[in-house]
């Protein structure tokens, strides 16, 4: 393998990401104690660790997209399993601090065609945002929208700031760090899903909190 400069940094990030993964697993093994100070510190470390891993994954993803065209690996996945998996992670990350609600609308088909890993990465990123800003509840929903599968993460925070909503609505980048990077990344993922002339979309709006929605044809 030939390593140009960016290739070298990508390999380095990759390695760091995996080491952090081990660190996260180690933190998972610290037992909870009857001492809030202890537990809160462990929770904070765990959340931070997962957050950094997510960030590094996004950086690698953007590197890959810059190197070659993105080919999502589309396959048939159970919508129920997908939502369940996301909510399990949300529950674990919130460690009882927030209520996690799940709603799969009866119209939603048993399977949908999508790139599970990319979609999960985008949804987990949205969950991380909500974990930081929600007051009490995060709600994960699967519904049908004009024949598309809509996967939604909804919280009861202050909502997205105006400039974020504008930039996603108009497809223009506004800044390339923090929350902004994650949302651009989610938009790219949604757009890489197409079917019969229709393209996936990321839709953001505020409705008693922030609403993050991936619409997949």
């Amino acid at each position: 393998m030939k390593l140009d400069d960016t290739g070298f940094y990508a390999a380095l990030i990759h390695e760091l990401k995996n080491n952090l993964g081990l660190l996260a697993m180690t933190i998972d093994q610290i037992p909870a104690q009857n001492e809030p100070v202890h537990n809160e510190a462990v929770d904070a470390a765990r959340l931070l660790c997962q957050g950094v891993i997510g960030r590094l994954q996004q950086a690698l993803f953007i590197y890959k997209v810059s190197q070659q065209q993105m080919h999502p690996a589309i396959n048939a996945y159970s919508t129920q399993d997908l939502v369940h998996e996301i909510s399990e992670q949300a529950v674990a990350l919130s460690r009882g601090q927030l209520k996690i609600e799940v709603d799969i609308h009866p119209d939603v088909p048993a399977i949908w065609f999508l790139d599970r890993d990319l979609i999960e990465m985008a949804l987990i990123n949205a969950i991380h945002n909500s974990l930081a800003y929600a007051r009490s509840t995060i709600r994960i929903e699967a519904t049908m929208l004009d024949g598309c599968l809509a996967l939604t993460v909804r919280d009861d925070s202050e909502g997205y700031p105006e400039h974020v909503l504008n930039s996603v609505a108009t497809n223009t980048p506004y800044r390339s760090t923090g929350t902004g990077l994650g949302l651009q990344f989610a938009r790219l993922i949604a757009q890489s899903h197409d079917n019969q002339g229709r393209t996936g979309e990321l839709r953001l709006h505020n409705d008693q909190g922030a609403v993050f929605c991936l619409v997949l044809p």
Partner: protein
Amino acid sequence: MNQPSVQIKDAFIDYGELRALVVDDYPGMRNALRLTLTNFGIRKIQLAGNAAEAIFQVKSKPCDFILCDYNLGDGRDGQQLLEELRHSNLISPETVFIMVTAESFYEKVVATAELAPDDYMIKPFSAEVLHSRLESVLQRKRAFHDVHRHLLAHNLEAAILACDEIIRSRPKYMVDALRFKGELLVTLERFTEAEVLYQQIIKMRAIPWARLGLARTLHMQKKDEAAEEELRDVLEQAPEMVAAYDLLSEVCLSKKDAAAAQAALLQGVAISGKTVRRQQKLGEVALANGDLDTARTAFTHALEKGRHSIFITPSDFGNLCRVQLEQGDLKAVADTLRKNKSSLQDSPEGQLVMAVTQGMACIQDGKLQEAAKVLDAAGALRAAGTRGDDQLVLDMARVCMATGRLDEADGLVSEVARNSHDSEALLAKAKRIYEEAGRSDAGAAVLSDATSGVRKLNNEGVVLAQRGDYQSAVEKLLTACDEAPYNPRIMMNTVWVILKYLDESGMDEKRLEYARHYLAEAGRQAPDHPRLAGLRLQLKEIEKRFGIQRAAQA
């Protein structure tokens, strides 16, 4: 896709009873994963640091769940381990195999591999994700329990019906069941039905594995133009799908475009070069194309990657030496033989490869007396029942000819020609040997004598079978088998016709025994032939139907 999800209550899974095996080359990861699995309630957990250890563990204690890292250091990778476990039937279809990959690039290679794991995880992952993936796969295995049961009992028709039942009643598993059914139909050589099935999936969504399946059924029906078009197009969509390059090379070979076949294999090797059989195939195609450098690299890689692999045979050493001989690199030949002396001397096949290769080296070096000596050793091995592959037998014929043993040479060439009457590459090589020896006319006579009789019997047998006269077809083909006792094509045709005959006319112990014998022999001669699996299952079905239980070979 319009059916709403039906809630069928999931089965209860007792994790305490689950036997797990964790395969990872990094001890820190192994231990972390063991702790994670313990937290799921799994009590029986084995650990392995590489593929060899994993195979040892599986052989000594069966397991229900294997969690395996794709990258296992220097030895075989996780995909090779999976292929070996499934190929040698070391794990049952009920065993869950989850692959862990470090990069999402490998995930695409792994997920689209012909022999895909049940699921895969991208590192790093949380315990929750692993748990929910494992739970999903275990539930899926439960849903497919009847399919697996029928498959293990070699009752393919029933397995297909069980798939149909899942397709009808469990929308969540519909696509999985369609995929399974497609593979069963291909195994049973019901290609038109399989084609319709893959088209049905593609209509829902053009997912790469369905398009690969479609291309395979097209190829099997000799619609190679359409197969190639489908493959080239799907590779635009999923350039990491290595299995598509393998199939593309097969399609190109049957279109007699050996250069394109080599190009396809080179692309496959660039993505995943560890697969021994891909390297072997590349070596063979490159050698036939006269591209000796590529052939040498590929055969060398096959031997390196395949160390301790079940896919390596003495023929692989013979192939590498053959290229080195053609390059006139006698020193390399001596090196190859010296380095692998112990493994070659282990078996009569290996000893034959050594003897013939040394003979070839001697005649290149002008040492005819020494050549005669190793030829005697080779002759003794053959007299004792060791055959050697066709290439090796032709090489032996060449040494015979160079040392003046013309009758022996003609006998060897005739044997190869009878047993490979349909291999243009081998017949062309035989012809060249005669040309080099200045005996073109003698060669033409030997070859035409050898092939015409066999070809005629085979064709007559096939025509009779097509007319439905299976009884006469069986007699013709059994005669053809006597003439060419190691010809895989003829043996498989014979088996197929006998099974048809039994199916129509009822039990006939003696003919059934012939079918068993020739199927086993065809398996030895052409272990990778795509028809074998189907014939084996058809044989099992016939045996089952007539209530024959072969005594277990203790």
